[in-house]
């Protein structure tokens, strides 16, 4: 099986609903169950929202490209933008054992991506941030 889909979204968080529909269509095509689809939706939303919120200076427009590629072994999402260099994989781990008083509100997004995806890889290529998230197809969550 070879499957490929692409979507370009503006850096506007209102587009996350459209992103959700895109991810659901991809997951349905590769045969993921609803629970796994839910989690992938979450991981991809977190990664894309990060780009929408921080890649481009406030008030400027920019795009985020999302490529989904699947073969018999894995589903891969490649998220790219032409914004400020930023490697989300360098962000520290959140401590999920802290109390409500001690918990900060940041870092949850990357934490969820790490929990859900099998691998996360960042590269800076030709002036672009390229984040690749992989999920093995054999493994429903």
């Amino acid at each position, binding site marked *: 099986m070879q499957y490929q889909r692409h979507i370009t979204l503006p850096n506007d968080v209102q587009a*996350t609903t459209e992103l959700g529909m895109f991810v659901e269509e991809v997951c349905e095509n590769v045969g993921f169950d609803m*629970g796994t689809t*839910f*989690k992938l*939706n979450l991981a991809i939303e977190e990664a894309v929202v990060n780009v929408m919120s921080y890649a481009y200076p406030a008030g400027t427009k920019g795009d985020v490209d999302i490529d989904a590629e699947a073969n018999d072994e894995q589903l891969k999402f490649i998220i790219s933008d032409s914004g400020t260099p930023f490697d989300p994989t360098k962000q520290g781990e959140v401590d999920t054992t802290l109390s*409500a*008083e001690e918990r900060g*509100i940041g870092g*949850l997004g990357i934490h*969820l991506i790490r929990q859900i995806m099998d691998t996360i890889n960042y590269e800076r290529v030709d002036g672009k941030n390229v984040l690749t998230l992989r999920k093995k197809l054999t493994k429903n969550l």
Partner: protein
Amino acid sequence: MKTTFKEEDNFFVMYFEGRLDTAASAQTEEEMKPLYDCSGHDIILDCTNLEYISSSGLRLFLGLLKTAKPKGSHVYIRGINEDLRQVFAMTGFINLFEFK
């Protein structure tokens, strides 16, 4: 995404319906403001019809908890489905909230 606020037996109850994604979070934050004025009331966040939540929604829940706790109010989560429960587990939120 739709929310409904009700006072039931001295509880402040907010019903969440639909997808609490990043696109919905700003409006939902506004709609949750009445809950912040909770002195003397415990709060129930009814998630029976909540289909999805991302970190922006989780932040709203945590923000409410941080405000309510010092006022002596409990924040209960009611009716979450299995997918949502797993998100609460992955983020450690399962230990922060009380569940009904």
